[in-house]
Structures are given as structure tokens and as C-alpha cells.
């Protein structure tokens, strides 16, 4: 009797171990392509060529590390490109953050004609694929270029113009996200502040904004990342290297005729990744709150 009990117990235990291990096995299998991809990226940036995950030297033997791929850092072009990417990212943070926090506050708190239709329209705009708008936006930017003073900064083939387009395309999401945060705040606090003697603007600035700081920060991170890695819009509305941002610059390194140095492109990609990684490490928690807080937003 005793042995039988022991056997069933051990079999039961084995099954339980399998049950616990299975999810991990599945998870490891499903993320391994991504992990391997990143591993390749890191190895590739420090080697002449790669074969699989192995670095290959000039003679075709395994081994041989090099810093040759990182020589682009001495080229002034990369720093100009970095600056452009940075301006674009910061422009997104400031532009989307400012406009959507004000718009979302009004939409969350005030009642005005067209509020409902504005909200649903914003949602539709968000769902609208921006690719379909590229040609129309090209005409708009071209038109802006012809306006003196403004055209110089916000027209076709300018950082400002690209930033403007990206901000406006990101606003619907930003507004909805911020509205979710505002909706979660109790009205009583604002009423209390109004009764305490604050003006509407002061309530917004001194009471409301401090309370939605996590949301604002999350939105900022979000926009920084999307501005930093933007490709399609900068690629469409800029020509040449003068106003290219990092992804566009990377695209320009890929030549149609001459052989492409893929390992250098990997290095540029790696270079672009570093700020994002640092950012991510410090802001993970806030990013999570975007989904936690934003998803609660109702009408």
C-alpha cells in the first residue's frame, strides 16, 4: 500500500513540475528569436562580418573583433542627425503634452457644443492610417513653405515641418490618454479649489496638473520614443542629409548600387538604441501606468 501511495505521489509531483515549467518553456521559445536578434546586433557591431552568431574576420575565419564599424561616430553628420532626432523627439514631447493636456481637460470637464462629436472624431482620426494622408500632407507642407517666415521653419524639408505633422498625428491618442487621466480625478477637488478662491486656470495648474503628473510623464516618454524612432514621416517630407533623423540616415546608408556595410548599419542601429534603453530602464513603471490609467478613460 505504502509503495503505491508513494508512486502516485511522485507521478503527481512530476506532472505538477511539468505544469509549472510548461509556461516558461513556451515563453522562452517565443521570445528567443527576439533575443537572438539582439544578440546578433551586438555581435555584428564589433565584427567584420558575421556568419550566424559568429564573427568572421577578413580571411573568413571565425573570430576577430573590430571597432571599425563605430568609426561613423567621428563623422560630424551623425551628430547633426542625432540632434535632429533629439529635436524631433523633444518637440513631440512638448507639443503633444501641452496641447493634449489642455484639450483633454476641456473635454473631460467642460460641456460645450460639439464635445461628443469632437471626441468620436478624434477616435476615428486615431484609427485612420496616417500613410493614407501622406500625399495630402505633402501639399499642406508645400503650401506652408510658401508663407514667409513660417515656411522657413515649418515647411517642406524642415525639422519643424516634420515635427508639426508628427505632433498632429499623435494628438488624438494623446488627448484620449490624458482625458482618461482627467476623468479619474474627482470633481470635488476642483470644486474645493474653486471655492477656496482659485481661478479656473489656477485650478488646472496648481491642483490638476500635479495630480496627473504620472500620466503626463508617461505620455512624454511615449512621445519621446515615437519621435526618436520616427521613420515614415521624416523620410517622406525631407530630402538629403541636412534634415534627416537617425532612421532616415540609416536608410541612406543602404545603397542600391554599391555593396552595403551591414555591420556599420547595425552599429548605427545600436547607437540609436542606447538612449532608448537608458530611458526605458528608468521609466518602465510610468510607461505601465499609461496603460493602467489610460485604459480606464470612458466617455
Amino acid at each position, binding site marked *: 500500500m505504502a509503495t503505491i501511495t508513494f508512486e502516485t505521489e511522485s507521478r503527481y509531483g512530476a506532472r505538477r513540475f511539468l505544469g509549472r515549467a510548461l509556461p516558461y518553456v513556451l515563453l522562452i521559445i517565443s521570445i528567443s528569436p527576439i533575443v537572438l536578434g539582439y544578440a546578433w546586433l551586438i555581435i555584428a557591431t564589433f565584427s567584420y562580418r558575421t556568419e550566424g552568431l559568429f564573427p568572421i574576420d577578413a580571411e573568413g575565419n571565425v573570430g576577430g573583433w573590430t571597432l571599425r564599424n563605430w568609426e561613423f561616430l567621428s563623422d560630424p553628420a551623425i551628430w547633426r542627425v542625432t540632434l535632429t532626432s533629439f529635436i524631433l523627439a523633444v518637440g513631440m514631447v512638448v507639443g503633444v503634452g501641452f496641447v493634449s493636456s489642455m484639450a483633454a481637460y476641456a473635454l473631460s470637464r467642460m460641456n460645450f457644443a460639439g464635445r461628443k462629436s469632437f471626441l468620436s472624431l478624434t477616435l476615428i482620426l486615431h484609427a485612420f492610417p496616417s500613410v493614407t494622408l501622406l500625399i495630402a500632407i505633402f501639399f499642406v507642407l508645400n503650401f506652408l513653405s510658401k508663407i514667409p517666415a513660417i515656411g522657413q521653419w515649418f515647411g517642406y524639408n524642415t525639422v519643424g515641418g516634420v515635427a508639426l505633422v508628427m505632433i498632429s498625428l499623435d494628438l488624438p491618442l494623446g488627448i484620449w490618454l490624458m482625458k482618461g487621466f482627467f476623468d479619474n480625478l474627482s470633481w470635488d477637488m476642483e470644486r474645493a479649489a474653486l*471655492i477656496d478662491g482659485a481661478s479656473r486656470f489656477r485650478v488646472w495648474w496648481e491642483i490638476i496638473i500635479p495630480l496627473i503628473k504620472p500620466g503626463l510623464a508617461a505620455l512624454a516618454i511615449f512621445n519621446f520614443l515615437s519621435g526618436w524612432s520616427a521613420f515614415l514621416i521624416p523620410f517622406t517630407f525631407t530630402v538629403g542629409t541636412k534634415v534627416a533623423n537617425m532612421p532616415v540616415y540609416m536608410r541612406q546608408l543602404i545603397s542600391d548600387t554599391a555593396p552595403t556595410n551591414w555591420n556599420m548599419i547595425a552599429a548605427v542601429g545600436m547607437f540609436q538604441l542606447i538612449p532608448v534603453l537608458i530611458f526605458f530602464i528608468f521609466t518602465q513603471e510610468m510607461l505601465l501606468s499609461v496603460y493602467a490609467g489610460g485604459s480606464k478613460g470612458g466617455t
Partner: protein
Amino acid sequence: MKVELENLTKRWGNVVGADSMNLDIKDAEFVAFLGPSGCGKTTTLLMVAGIYKPTAGFILFDGQVVNHMAPKDRNIGMVFQSYALYPHMTVFQNISYPLKLKKVPKEKMQEQTQRVADMMGIGHLMDRKPAQLSGGQQQRVALGRALVKEPDLLLFDEPLSNLDARLRLTMRAEIKRLQMDMGITSIYVTHDQVEAMTMADRIAIMKDGQLQAYGLPEELYDQPRTLFVAGFVGSPPMNLVNVEVARENGEYHARREGFDVVVPAERGEKAASKGNVTLGIRPEDVTVADGGISGEIYVVEPLGRDDLITVHVGDASVHVLADPTLGLRMGQAVTLGFNTHKVQFFDPQTEKSLLWTD
């Protein structure tokens, strides 16, 4: 400060929040708005505060129409059910915020804030954030913030309903005392009739956006003008049974199946020959006595000082506050005596009192 409401109305499309309210509040008076949830009492309060704009009618402070005055210019203090403290500010910053907005000099602000905080018994908590305080302490901060700017009018929106029962009792007494000492006109919104009865100088009873009755607590208790007021004021609520009142041999009998009570002439004559009327009698005015109306005890609920017993009389049930030493049990047959000098009569159609008219 004197407050008057004239035909004050608030509507959102077809939804009526408050319907032509007429009310006057004397200087230094403590008035309670009492009613079930959704009756428009908070709506009215927020109109007085200036948060909601009235659809029609007027709000007057000391005879001046203030309909279009911004909340910040009305010099009022308000305490919310949720306390509505600013979570990112310390207790000191919370209490001093109204002074900061008034641009009171820093030293005076510090002194005034400290004085109010000491008065509220939270002077030692100045550097804490609201989240680090207990519910009762948060309530005191909210009260302090409302008082610090020495308002002309204090508004309370169910301020005690988030506190536990014991603390509620303490705060009730404290708020009442504070209001008397400071002599600030106050409006207190509550759905708890005990709070309204114990604290207020006068009570305004509201239902469906309409003012049902406005008067002294004891007046509302002893001379309810409508069926709603009779049922809402008093705990446990008044017993209401349908009877017919008839005059026989010079006596007035209120009758229904298994039920016959002789009522005093001055009350009975107003209800006689009206067909079906509603008789009201409070549980404390019914006693378990020898002789009278016989019934059967349905349930006994000990309340400590009294037992609340439900007695089935025919097909009606009557609540009685009985002496616990009687040792009443469920299912026992009892006879009930009525203190007939306290009976009320209402017209079941109009729901108005047959005894008291304005």
C-alpha cells in the same frame, strides 16, 4: 450672512435637479437639507456655492443677487463628503491654500493656519500628507481649510458619512459647537435624519428636487405636513395604516379590520367622513398594554434601551418600541395601546396632512 433662495431651479434638459426652491436662512443659522439620495440637495448646495449656474430663480446673500458671482468671490467655505483634500500638498499647505490665494502675508498666513489647526486638534500633523492621515483627521483638515478664511457661509456636503459611527457622533457634536461659537451661517446636506434633527436649527426636507417642508426639527417631528415628511423624519419611522374614521356616540373611531381606536375629537373630526385616510403613529407612541388592539408579534429586534417589535394586526404591521424587561417573544399574542393624542391623519391621495395645513 443671510441667505435667500427664490424660485431656484436647476435643469439639465429634462432632468430636474432642483425645482423652484424658496427658502430663507437667517444670519448665524444652521440649516440642514435633508432628503433621500438624488433629491437635489447637493445640487442646491452647489448652486449656492456657485459651482452650478441656476437655470432660473435667484440666490441672494444679504439681499444681493449673487447668481453670476464666481465661487471665489462669494467668501464661502465648503466641506465635502470625500474631504477633497489636495493629495500633493501637506496639511499646512492644504489649510493655508485659501489664504495663499487671498495673498495674505506669509507671517499672518502661518499664524492663522496654526491657530485653526490647533483649534481642530491637528496642529501637530502640519507636515503630513493627507494620505498619511486617518479619516477623522482628514475630516478635520477639510474643516480647517473651510474655516481658515473666516467665511460668511459654511457649506457641508454629507461631511460625516465616510466616518465610522463613533467618530461621527463626536464630529457631529464638534461641528455643532464650532458653528455656534463662530456664528457662521451654515447649510448642512445630509440623508441622515438623526444628523439633521440633532444639529440643525431648521430642517429643509427635499424630495425629487422639491422642497417638502421647512421648519424646526420638533415641528417636523410632531406636525408633519406631508406623508413623506412623516415617513422620513424619525427613527424607527412612523407607522402608517389605512383606516376609516367615523363618529359614533360623540366619539371618533378609527377603524380597519381587527383595529379600532378611539381618537381625540380635535384630531378625529378633521379625518371623519373622508373615506379612506392614512393614520400615522410613531413607534414610541404605541405601547404593549392590557386591553386594546390585539395582534401577534412577528419579530423582536433588541436595540439595547428598547426592543423594536413588529406586530401583525390583521393584515397590517405595526412597529412598537417596547420595554425589554417585558421579555416579549416572537409569535406571542399581545395587545397594543395607542397614545391617541399623537396620531396623525393624511389624505392618501394628496399625501397632505389633514391636521396641519400651512
